[in-house]
């Protein structure tokens, strides 16, 4: 390990490290790239489960009186379970392992030019703790009473007493699975931050670190600093459920709103924990495919850090009508406006990056642009939620559902796919099919909007969240066709992902072998072979001479200038 960390190692050492058995290569690996693939695999497996739950939910909402094919009648208890587990899985077991676990692990050491994470064994422990969390969450579906059904936000008192939901062990295991998941990403976060601070290659100053690494470590710091209060809150919740403490029981001095404060103190930074890595991937893709420097790299770094800091003081905008003191609404409304400054900056800088570029519409770029467009939409609908008086009406309705799917779903799907299509050649050494990728993009874009755009409308019409049967409400009966449209969109979107699966499988089996730098990009990972060997680099670490986005430099021969290329030789 120490040897691996040292800058220069002998060629024999590389050979020695590379020659390991099956178990140490694929299962108990300390190699950051293998750990990234393990996170990716687990995340994709959970995507399947979470997507299945969503599809069942959508069927129930469109045709509440018909049994779901292959599942049966959905009772309201089961529906609440579907809602809860869909949210929990998608945020904590899909978005985080894929965007942080997979991308972070794979990219950080490669992009800053080192051989592995600062603590490779801790990294392995992280992925295995996550696997254990996955197991616990999966088991919770099958315990008597079923899985948790108090919403992914788990508001007490509903979650604090088994009698209120009828779920006992399911919810305890839900808390346990979350705690293990937090532990996994705490280990990961400590690793990311330490690696990026300590192990940068020669010449890789902080202001030459690629944007996605900045975003990843900001996300890691946000997670580390925000999850503590929620862990405290979760311990209180578990003790309330099991040994009879009374933190959330108002009759003996507790207060249910404490949980909401602690949850959203974590919850808002958590939104950025998921968003920033996706944003980072998109910020990497945009300059490569417009052949232009990122517009205002230093400003974006600053904006990211400012946004991260501000995310700690906006949480009560999730609680405008929660029964907290109404005088708190305005201060938190103002901080919410402040946080739009850095994000507006980043979005406009993304658009400005395209200005006078030479834009190639490859699949990663299409997904990046899709993210940008959908994220603008989600950001704008956020204003309806962020303004306290209009939130009186739209909160707790499907408008909110539409809003956060435009932000989070677009981050995970469009941002995630942009990164996936972009780094797939590096990760697996194969080229994905461009026509299939483009088909995948256009179908996803269309059906995403078919699914989620109408939800704004039905939310405005007054449909509240987490109801199993909209037809029970007279005001909603005339709008039921919207639910049908959204459901059809969902099924089409799920079917579209078969194109993606086909593309990946086909490429892995018969795809063209990827060259070292297929996109002609600058950052260091493209200097390593595809896929990079164990310990990434040959005997010597790369040396960095310039920033990550030196595209179309007038005095350079090529329209790109890899970070490890001595500029004197590029002319």
């Amino acid at each position, binding site marked *: 390990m120490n040897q691996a960390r040292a800058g220069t190692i002998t060629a024999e050492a590389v050979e020695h490290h590379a020659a390991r058995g099956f178990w140490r290569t694929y299962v108990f690996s300390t190699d950051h790239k293998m750990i990234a693939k393990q996170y990716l695999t687990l995340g994709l497996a959970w995507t399947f489960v979470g997507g299945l739950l969503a599809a069942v939910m959508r069927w129930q909402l469109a045709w509440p009186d018909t049994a779901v094919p292959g599942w049966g009648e959905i009772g309201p208890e089961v529906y609440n379970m579907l809602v809860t587990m869909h949210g929990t899985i998608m945020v904590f077991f899909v978005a985080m392992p894929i965007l942080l676990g997979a991308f972070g692990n794979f990219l950080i050491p490669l992009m800053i030019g080192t051989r592995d994470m*600062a603590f490779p064994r801790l990294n392995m422990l992280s992925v295995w703790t996550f696997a254990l969390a996955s197991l616990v969450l999966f088991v919770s579906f099958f315990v008597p009473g079923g899985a948790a059904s108090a919403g992914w936000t788990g508001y007490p008192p509903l979650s604090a007493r088994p009698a209120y939901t009828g779920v006992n062990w399911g919810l305890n295991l839900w808390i346990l699975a979350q705690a293990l998941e937090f532990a996994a990403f705490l280990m990961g976060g400590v690793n990311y931050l330490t690696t990026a601070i300590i192990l940068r290659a020669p010449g890789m100053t902080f202001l030459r670190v690629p944007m996605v690494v900045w975003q990843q470590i900001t996300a890691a710091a946000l997670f580390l600093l*925000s999850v503590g209060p929620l862990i405290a*809150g979760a311990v209180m919740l578990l003790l309330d459920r099991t040994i009879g403490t009374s933190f959330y029981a108002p009759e003996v001095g507790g207060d249910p709103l404490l949980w909401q404060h602690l949850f959203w103190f974590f919850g808002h930074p958590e939104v950025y924990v998921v968003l920033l890595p996706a944003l980072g991937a998109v910020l990497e893709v945009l300059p490569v495919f417009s052949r232009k420097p990122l517009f205002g790299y230093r400003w974006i770094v600053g904006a990211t850090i400012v946004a991260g800091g501000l995310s700690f003081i906006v949480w009560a905008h999730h609680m405008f009508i929660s029964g907290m003191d109404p005088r708190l609404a305005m201060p938190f409304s103002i901080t919410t406006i402040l946080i739009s400054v850095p994000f507006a900056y980043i979005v406009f800088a993304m658009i400005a990056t395209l200005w006078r570029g030479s834009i190639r519409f490859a699949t990663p770029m299409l997904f990046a642009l899709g993210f940008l467009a959908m994220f603008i939409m989600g950001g704008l609908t956020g204003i309806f939620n962020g303004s306290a008086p209009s939130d009186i009406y739209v909160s707790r309705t499907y408008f909110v559902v539409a809003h956060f799917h435009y932000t989070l779903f677009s981050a995970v799907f469009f941002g995630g796919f942009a990164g996936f299509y972009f780094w797939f050649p590096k990760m697996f050494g194969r080229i994905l099919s461009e026509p299939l990728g483009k088909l995948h993009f256009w179908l996803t874009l269309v059906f995403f909007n078919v699914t989620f755009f109408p939800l704004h409308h039905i939310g405005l019409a007054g449909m509240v969240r987490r109801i199993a049967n909209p037809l029970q409400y007279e005001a909603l009966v005339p709008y039921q066709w919207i639910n049908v449209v959204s459901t059809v969109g969902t099924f089409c979107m799920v079917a579209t992902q078969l194109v993606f699966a086909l593309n990946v499988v086909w490429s892995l089996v018969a795809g063209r072998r990827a060259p070292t730098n297929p996109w002609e990009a600058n950052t260091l990972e493209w200097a390593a072979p595809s896929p990079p060997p164990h310990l990434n680099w040959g005997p010597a670490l790369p040396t960095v001479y310039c920033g990550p986005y030196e595209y179309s430099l007038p005095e350079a021969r090529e329209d790109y200038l890899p970070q490890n290329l001595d500029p004197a030789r590029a002319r």
Partner: protein
Amino acid sequence: MSTSVEAPAIPGMPAGKVGVWWFLASEIMMFGGLIASYMVFRLGSSGWHEASAHVSVALGAVNTLILLTSSLTVVQAFAAAERENAPALRLFLGLTILGGLGFLGIKAIEYTTEIRAGFTPGAGIFWSFYYTMTGLHALHVLAGIVLNAILFLAARVRTPRRVELAGLYWHFVDVVWIFLFPLLYLS
């Protein structure tokens, strides 16, 4: 475009120390969240002073004394490790472990007396906080004892860096108690 190639490493910042401090940062937030909840609950309602009159200030004070002293011994262990003085290292690590065990022993006596008197975790909001805060803290003490015990058994290896990192964690646990003591026992 600047093309300088200076080494980016920051002197005096070994990876282990940065990692431990980030870990401690999240720990600060966890205990911070717990203490913040306790403070606002306590200031926002009445009847706390009466409930907290039932804890033993004397035992709490002894425990504070023990933890403060164990902080001294653990930092002396680090100094001994840097001097490569193995016997002193073992002595100080051993004293630290003894201190931790003594702390847990006294905590156990306190819990027993309190529960016998009917002050279980379900006996009211003060006791909910009391058991959760001291219980979480005791778990941290236990983890610290295990860490120090591992170093004690491996003292022949003499790795001052590890002794320092385990010490950082131990001091943090001490600092938490420095605040828990007045919050739960003295006010």
